[in-house]
């Protein structure tokens, strides 16, 4: 053994220190994403999204469709029945297209999102969105796998060996393009166009209703409290739905370039004034959501909302702070979530407050 005098054994435990730091410390400080980000990096709408849907017009027909997507072109045999979805948005939109996946990744919360149809309980859970279980996926013998380059680029090769794999460029903000992409990959272009058209129509109706009610200028703020950080949402999935509904954003929450803007910012308490709007939607977990009134849902929220800065926000003074369920506002990121969000908006603007 090493016995050099200068090297007391005690010392070597210290080695552990390093390793611990290596393994532990740094990740500590990383905040975790599974707080439910429909994250989108700078990349703009995916190229694959508006790719050629024309040659696949066939409705659930047999035959093949070549799907252009973020990783290249992939041939899918129509109509795929065994579908594995590697992200929340993929799961949501696949269900919306009338297909129950055979494999899905875990939701960001303990239980499935309440807004999703009961069928979401049926599929096998194949790991997490960040680390899907490739073996479990292979065991399901899927016909097609839907993921995103943002999350799953490193697994593309292995996934492709399991089944034709289609990736969107990113997730979150590009969700509508992605719905078209998933529809194409599932040989269900028509359904895709239908659900999107229905959504657009509903969003337009809300927009006109808001105009009629004189609320077209309403500036909407979206925030979320978490134990170790607080966020303002700018674009992303929820931002795009607000935009479709014709709602405005407070000056501080407007972005110059929709496609390349960060979709959210983490802020310090000093930036509480930037949270203000005519309405503040606070995304909370479904547990908190169920607890109804009061802001004392968690420590962070309590601390922030007890400041005079918060109390001074015009939305707080007007009693226009409204809690919404993060499951469909933030975690889902598919077309069902978008419709659920519209429902919340309709309810809030058109039913609860007939006058503005």
């Amino acid at each position, binding site marked *: 053994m090493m016995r050099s005098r200068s090297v007391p054994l005690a010392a070597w435990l210290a080695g552990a220190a390093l390793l*611990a730091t290596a393994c532990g410390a740094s990740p*500590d400080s990383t905040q975790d994403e599974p707080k439910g980000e429909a994250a989108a990096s700078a990349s703009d709408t995916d190229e694959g999204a508006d790719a050629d849907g024309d040659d696949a017009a066939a409705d659930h027909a047999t035959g093949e469709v070549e799907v252009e997507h973020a990783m290249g072109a992939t041939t899918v045999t129509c109509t795929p029945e065994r579908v594995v979805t590697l992200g929340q948005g993929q799961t949501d939109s696949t269900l919306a297209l009338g297909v129950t996946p055979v494999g899905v990744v875990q939701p960001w919360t303990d239980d499935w999102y309440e807004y999703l149809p009961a069928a979401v309980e049926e599929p096998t859970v194949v790991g997490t969105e960040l680390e899907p279980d490739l073996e479990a996926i292979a065991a399901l013998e899927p016909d097609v796998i839907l993921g995103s380059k943002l999350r799953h680029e490193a697994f593309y090769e292995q996934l492709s060996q399991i089944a034709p794999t289609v990736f969107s460029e990113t997730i979150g903000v590009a969700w509508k393009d992605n719905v078209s992409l998933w529809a194409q990959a599932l040989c269900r272009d028509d359904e895709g166009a239908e659900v999107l058209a229905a959504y657009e129509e509903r969003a337009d109706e809300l927009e006109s209703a808001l105009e009629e009610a004189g609320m077209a200028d309403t500036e909407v703020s979206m925030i979320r409290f978490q134990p170790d950080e607080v966020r303002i949402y700018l674009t992303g999935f929820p931002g795009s739905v607000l935009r479709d509904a014709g709602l405005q954003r407070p000056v501080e929450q407007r972005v110059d370039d929709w496609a390349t803007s960060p979709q959210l910012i983490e802020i310090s308490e000093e930036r509480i004034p930037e949270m203000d709007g005519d309405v503040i939607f606070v995304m909370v977990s479904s547990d908190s959501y169920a607890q109804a009134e009061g802001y004392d849902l968690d420590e962070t929220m309590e601390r922030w909302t007890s400041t005079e800065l918060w109390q001074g926000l015009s939305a707080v003074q007007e009693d226009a702070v409204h809690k919404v369920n993060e499951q469909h506002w933030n975690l889902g990121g598919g077309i069902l979530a978008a419709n659920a969000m519209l429902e919340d908006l309709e309810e809030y603007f058109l039913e609860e407050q007939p006058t503005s």
Partner: protein
Amino acid sequence: MIRRVGVIVLAAVVLVAVSAVSIAVGSVTLPLGEVLDAITGARSSDAHLIVSDLRVPRMIGGLVAGGCLGVAGVLLQGATRNPIASPSMLGITAGGGFAVAMGVAFLGLPAGAAVWVAFVGGAGAAALALALASTGRDGLSPIRLVLSGAIVSSLLGAWTAGLLAIDQRTADDVRHWLAGSLAGREVAAVGPLLPIVAVALVAAWVLARPLDALALGDETAVGLGQRPGRIRLGAAGLAVLLSAVAVALAGPIAFVGLAVPHVARWLVGSEHRLVLLVSLFLGPAMLLGADVVGRVVARPSEVQAGVLTALLGAPLLIRLAVRAKVAS
């Protein structure tokens, strides 16, 4: 003597300057006029509220936590006659932070109990490090003590990582406590801690002379009528208590307690009373300085002060390791 007084005054001036900057600079840029109005008591704009409700309490938290860490470092370095001893190098801040995080996140202890939980955790970690360092064949050596402290820190870090991997929910809570930051702490917590701090500082002042004697060697100290064992125990206990206050206020902040006493000794020599005074001023200066940099370096978000003290302090550790006259 005049030079020493000059240095102490200079250290105080530096602290005042850094404190002023910490009020003037933050993640939001405010007009200086508004800042000045706020200091004189105005509360009519967001800027005023930001200054008086956020920046000033944060500065106070930083003053107390930084002062505690600086003094704790002096006490530990004196008690162990080891220039690399400090609350973080001996595992005390890690132990305190770990205990608070676990206590608050898993056991649901009230945040007000944090200081005592941190005291128990810090003392436990220090005792473990000491025990580890003393089990070797050659007895306790300064370097071994520091390496043992590093081991204990790493052990706690590893277990924290393990817990985080298992319980995602609690992880967020724990991260908040382990962040090593002045942001988002209950600054109201400062008040009840002040008596503790005051008593500890007076005790540290009293211990300064005996520590001077100790610096001459145990035998000389005994010859001077001191009892080295008691002095060590007292200084270490005080250091753990002061570190616990810092942990309760700011989480486990590393390297302030290591770096500040060195700068102080470099400025005023080795007499403990002077080193204590200068460290009392420079500790908060370093912590507040790191905090200010952390507020602006990743706008609109913030980086924890502890990260920046580590970036500042680690090079000093490297320098000490390769240069300082530490008996290994």
